[in-house]
């Protein structure tokens, strides 16, 4: 196991920001980023010129710009001495935070903003090459719902998947979105398990309410060293305490069990680094592009055995009131997926809960959190990027 560069908890999150999630906003990622940046600066009492580290994500909406991060920093008035962009897809937020922590530890910068923004429901400029051109697009695969249709059907072949368990998770997350002012407004009405079960099929067995919907928005965090946080008089600092990532799990195997994902590695590993067992985790904020992905993460992180995720969900209260609150702000499935910035939605909700600022959906004991990221559907298996981070006080 790799050493834990976050074990000393010497770099913390001192502020966060998040826009309301919109559909077809007509706004650019620059504009959404500016809104989140203003919130972070205001909370931290800083000016743009104080920020010397900056990381963001590759986007769907501005991906034809090969110089996106310098353009974005220029737009915001930031002169970084350390700059980074992540193409970990939905894992970009955690990847950015992990690398910002390393940059601060290494002395490359002191005040690093990890600001994720995207607006894919307004502008779509992505054009993926590689195998997609020859062996993916011509098959008519319905993008992520098609890929997850194949994955979910295989899971159902090997294990007992109970649709009502996924329905229960969908209902719990929707309850969080109803109480989350930043969630996409049309999603802020309750649903029932029957609504889930009766939602139309996109690509069997994936239903509409299994899936995220593309939306526009931004969210971000400000990190600095423990010492600098004291000088800023920052209160309620949240410390990343362990991080693991794996990309292209098992990719040289030609006929692997595709229901085994990178989380079978990073899930147990990140908890071991943090000195936790699954039972110690007070909140879980898993990347939720599809409900089945959350169930698989629950199993592979170790809350239950493989194939027992349905029973675990049916036996566990995963609402914000429950014993294992999951994606208390609605997650992406019920708040909207802000493109490749979306991993920050899960992370910011975890930080907000740990700071006791989640209002009506506040969990009682937000002592720690596990947050995860997933990036990009891959050929003939699950997904390419799996990453996970623990947060502590």
């Amino acid at each position, binding site marked *: 196991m790799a050493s834990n560069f976050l074990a000393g908890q010497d770099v913390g999150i001192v502020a966060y920001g998040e826009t309301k999630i919109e559909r077809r906003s007509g706004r650019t990622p620059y504009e959404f980023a500016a809104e989140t940046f203003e919130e972070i600066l205001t909370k931290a009492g800083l000016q743009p010129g104080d920020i010397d580290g900056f990381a963001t994500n590759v986007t769907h909406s501005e991906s034809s710009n090969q110089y996106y991060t310098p353009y974005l920093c220029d737009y915001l008035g930031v002169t970084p001495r350390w700059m980074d962009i992540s193409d970990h897809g939905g894992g970009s937020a955690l990847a950015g935070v992990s690398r910002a922590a390393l940059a601060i530890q290494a002395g490359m910068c002191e005040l690093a903003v990890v600001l994720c923004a995207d607006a894919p429901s307004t502008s779509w400029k992505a054009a993926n090459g590689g*195998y997609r051109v*020859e062996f993916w697009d*011509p*098959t*008519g695969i319905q993008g992520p719902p098609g890929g997850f*249709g194949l994955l979910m059907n*295989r899971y159902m072949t090997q294990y007992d998947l109970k649709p009502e368990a996924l329905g229960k998770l969908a209902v719990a997350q929707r309850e969080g979105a109803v109480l989350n002012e930043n969630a996409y407004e049309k999603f802020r009405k309750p649903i029932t398990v029957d609504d889930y079960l009766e939602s139309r*099929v996109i690509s069997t067995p994936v239903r509409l309410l299994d899936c995220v919907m593309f939306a526009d928005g931004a969210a971000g965090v400000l990190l600095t060293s423990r010492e600098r946080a004291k000088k800023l008089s920052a209160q309620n600092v949240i410390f990343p305490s362990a991080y693991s990532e794996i990309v292209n799990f098992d990719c*040289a195997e030609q006929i692997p069990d595709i229901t085994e994902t990178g989380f079978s590695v990073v899930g147990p590993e990140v908890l071991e680094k943090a000195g936790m067992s699954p039972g110690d985790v007070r909140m879980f904020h898993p990347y939720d592009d599809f409900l089945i992905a959350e169930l698989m993460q629950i199993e592979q992180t170790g809350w239950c055995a493989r194939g027992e995720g349905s029973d675990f969900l049916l036996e566990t209260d995963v609402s914000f009131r429950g014993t294992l609150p999951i994606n208390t702000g609605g997650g992406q499935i019920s708040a909207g997926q802000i493109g490749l910035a979306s991993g920050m939605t899960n992370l910011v909700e975890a930080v907000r809960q740990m700071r006791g600022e989640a209002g009506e959906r506040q969990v009682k004991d937000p002592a720690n959190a596990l947050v995860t990221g997933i990036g990009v559907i891959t050929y003939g298996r699950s997904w390419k990027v799996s990453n996970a981070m623990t947060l502590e006080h």
Partner: protein
Amino acid sequence: MAENRKQRAIPISTKTTQPFWDGIEAGKLMLQYDPDENVYQFYPRAGSVKTGRRNLVWREASGVGTIYSFTETYVPIAGFEERTPYLLAMVELEEGVRILANLINVSAATISVGMPVKVAFETITDEQDYFCFEPA
């Protein structure tokens, strides 16, 4: 922009993948074989994912295998509107690779994981055929 494309996507070959498409045109399914590891690999690449060596050789595959997983799609991608709902499968070939392809001459009601299938070919344009699978 994807929404302007009404036709099914046409594969654009590279120097590395051209033998695969030459095979399709001749009604053959060609696979890359790694002589060092005695394994096949798919999709085609310039080098072996096991050894990194660029010593792969093309061999004609049997074209038979079984369904590893499948999905029936109700919201079509451009070019698939008229055949919606349509079936897509991960087929595990007897050479030990999996390949993503449409299933034809079969309905969702009669297929299952593990079912034997064999390669078939369909026309995308006058110049371009594409591989698919049908019940064996």
